[in-house]
């Protein structure tokens, strides 16, 4: 008994001294700030000390193979003295390769190892990237980038480095993003009684869809295949269920609008996929036929993400009939969803080289290689031209290669870069919780309020844990 008492006293002394050593500053929870969206945070001090070495370790994310190969090549030419360890995980054609990349990366990060610079989409790095960012796994380099004379802030899309989840810190750098546009044909919209001028507000947009759903003709669909999912609709309305920075839930009117919008699409979304994997019950094909489907009235809209091929197809519609608008968001801004990010591993011994590689990735030449919108505005023009060089074949088999006019190009660039509202992709955990809690509402089994209570409970746990 005496022995146990002695041990307990010793444990208490050790705990007491450890408690005394703990500092308030080291608390991992972020400080609460006043707002989030597009707040221009003050430029922080460049107090990051980078470790110099003659080595760099980078991993090739299979779906960014071409971009990474090019960037590594350029880096090697620029810094010939640095030994680059470039680990390959296979090509995009290998469906297991991205999963393998994620598994290895996560297990290495957990052991304080891994590449010096991580380049991948957020979901490939962690199941909830915003939460992981808070754990101190990556280096805060926002100050470094904004103070770097070689990085011209004007060259980058507005709000590019203000997407912070950790107060004024930013432990990742967006490399590319996507915006979602709705393409439509004016004649088809009018035929269906949809007022083009009333499509920018989510509530009006929902009413238009509601009306279309009531009067839709057989064999027609609202938009192109595979675009009905909640995860495809929710983020583009600008609705975010979780506010990581302020450690709060955002189950507000915007969220309700998004849920009401998806409720209209739920039935179509639940149609079993066909043998080829497409969900759309009405359209047999999409790829390469967006323009034709629009002008023939088979779809009311076509959804395009970033500078994708939908534009090429869309351009085949007769002059004058085209309608383009950003997916209606609550803020009336265009939602820019981060596609690929770069983060410097906080455990890296080669942080200086990692930072140098990051600047190469942000350079115009490398940014041009991105398929979705590059954050470097100067690269947007070339990326857009490359993207729109795809040829469109019409019904008669004629190959249409209408050159992109300067006016057209500037219009598209403006559409992709102006007035953006930045978002990180919704974490799988969050979308799973939303789905689990809200499905009875989509199925008309419970009211919105009933489901919302359940959702609030689960998301509070999710955010707090």
């Amino acid at each position: 008994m005496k022995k146990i008492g002695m041990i307990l006293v010793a444990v208490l002394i050790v705990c007491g001294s450890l408690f005394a050593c703990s500092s308030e500053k080291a608390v991992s929870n972020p400080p609460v700030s006043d707002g989030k969206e597009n707040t221009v945070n003050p430029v922080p001090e460049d107090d990051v000390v980078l470790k110099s070495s003659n080595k760099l370790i980078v991993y090739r994310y299979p779906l960014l193979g071409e971009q990474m190969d090019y960037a590594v090549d350029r880096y090697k030419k620029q810094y010939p003295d640095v030994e680059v360890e470039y680990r390959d995980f296979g090509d995009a054609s290998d469906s297991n390769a991205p999963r393998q990349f994620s598994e290895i990366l996560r297990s290495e990060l957990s052991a304080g190892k891994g590449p010096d610079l991580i380049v991948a989409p957020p979901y490939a790095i962690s199941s909830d990237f915003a939460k992981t960012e808070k754990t101190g796994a990556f280096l805060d380099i926002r100050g470094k980038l904004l103070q770097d004379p070689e990085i011209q802030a004007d060259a980058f899309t507005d709000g590019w480095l203000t997407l912070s989840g950790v107060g004024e810190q930013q432990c990742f750098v967006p490399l590319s993003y996507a915006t979602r546009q709705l393409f439509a044909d004016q004649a088809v919209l009018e035929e269906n009684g949809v007022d083009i001028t009333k499509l920018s507000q989510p509530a009006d947009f929902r009413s238009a869809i509601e009306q279309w759903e009531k009067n839709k003709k057989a064999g027609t669909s609202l938009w192109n295949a595979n675009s009905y999912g909640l995860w495809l609709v929710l983020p583009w309305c600008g609705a975010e269920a979780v506010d990581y920075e302020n450690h709060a839930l955002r189950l507000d009117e915007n969220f309700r609008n998004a849920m009401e919008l998806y409720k209209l699409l739920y039935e179509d979304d639940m149609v079993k996929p066909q043998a080829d994997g497409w969900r759309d019950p009405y359209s047999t094909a999409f790829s390469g036929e967006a323009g034709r489907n629009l002008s023939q009235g088979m779809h009311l809209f076509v959804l395009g993400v970033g500078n994708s091929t939908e534009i090429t197809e869309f351009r085949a519609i007769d002059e004058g009939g085209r309608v383009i608008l950003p997916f209606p968001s609550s803020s009336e801004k265009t939602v820019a969803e981060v596609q690929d990010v770069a983060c410097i591993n906080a455990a890296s011994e080669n942080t200086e080289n990692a930072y140098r590689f990051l600047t190469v990735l942000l350079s115009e030449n490398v940014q041009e290689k991105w398929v979705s919108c590059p954050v470097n505005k100067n690269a947007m023009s070339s990326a857009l031209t490359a993207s729109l060089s795809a040829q469109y074949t019409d019904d008669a088999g004629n190959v249409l290669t209408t050159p992109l006019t300067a006016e057209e190009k500037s219009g598209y660039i403006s559409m992709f870069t102006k007035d953006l509202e930045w978002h990180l992709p919704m974490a799988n955990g969050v979308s799973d919780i939303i789905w689990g809690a809200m499905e009875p509402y989509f199925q008309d089994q419970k009211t919105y309020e009933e489901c919302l209570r359940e959702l609030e409970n689960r998301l509070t746990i999710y955010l707090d844990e």
Partner: protein
Amino acid sequence: MKVQGKIQRRKALSGILFVAPAVMGTLVFFLVPFFISVCYSFTNGIASKQFVGLTNYRDLIGNKTFQMAVGNTARFVAAAIPLLNAVALTLALLLKRLHRKAKDLLRSVYIFPLVLPVASVVLFFEILFHESGIVNTFLQLFHVGPIDFMHSEYAFLALVTLYVWKNCGYNVILFAAMLESVPKEYYEEASLQGAGAIAKLWYITLPVSVPYLFFILIISFVNSFKAFREAYILFGNYPDNSIYMVQHFINNNFESINYVRISASAVLIFSVIFLIVLLLFYLQRQWNERN
């Protein structure tokens, strides 16, 4: 003398060789990772490894979700262990009265839930507790329900039922062995003095079986923390608040690579379990010394 020493040394060496794989396994897969986790729990990140004292523990203890998880886990342990042991002891006592062949058959039947794959067990319980499942169909005969067992506070009831059903067989076997160990003469003597069944259980069986009881209690306690596997498959990683356990908290933080928090919670939970088991051993020793 020399030859004897040599033989003893050889015996010792072979003994060491035999236990070496087990010791190495425990060391490499349990003790070393645990020690690393303890170290991580005092840092602000695996990457930066900056010492922050008890900050992570302070955050963790102040975290409302962690508090809820600990509360639910304690509630589960407090509800499930007495219920499990009461059911198992009753079944073991009934088993004792049966014919040997029936006894052997029932022992095998009781152990079935343990050997069944978790996935099929969970599937069975889904059928049982679904809104249009067997339990609700039965309840509707009495104009009750339907109850949403999976997404309401009733999920706790479903999980306790699952835990008791799954682990009961093992405890029945242990209790049966315990009852067999009590010398028959004690009962005969008690019968001669006119003692009834309850008096025999209270004054003979239980006092004589205290070492067994402690062992069963410790096993049940440790097993109760393994109920997470079933809970996870049945209710997902964000179940109803009533069954959100410490393991949910740890597992979900693992998903977002928050290893510092996982380490702190693992060390904290280990410390509590360790102290409780230590207390049980201490009480057992006190009992043995007193009797």
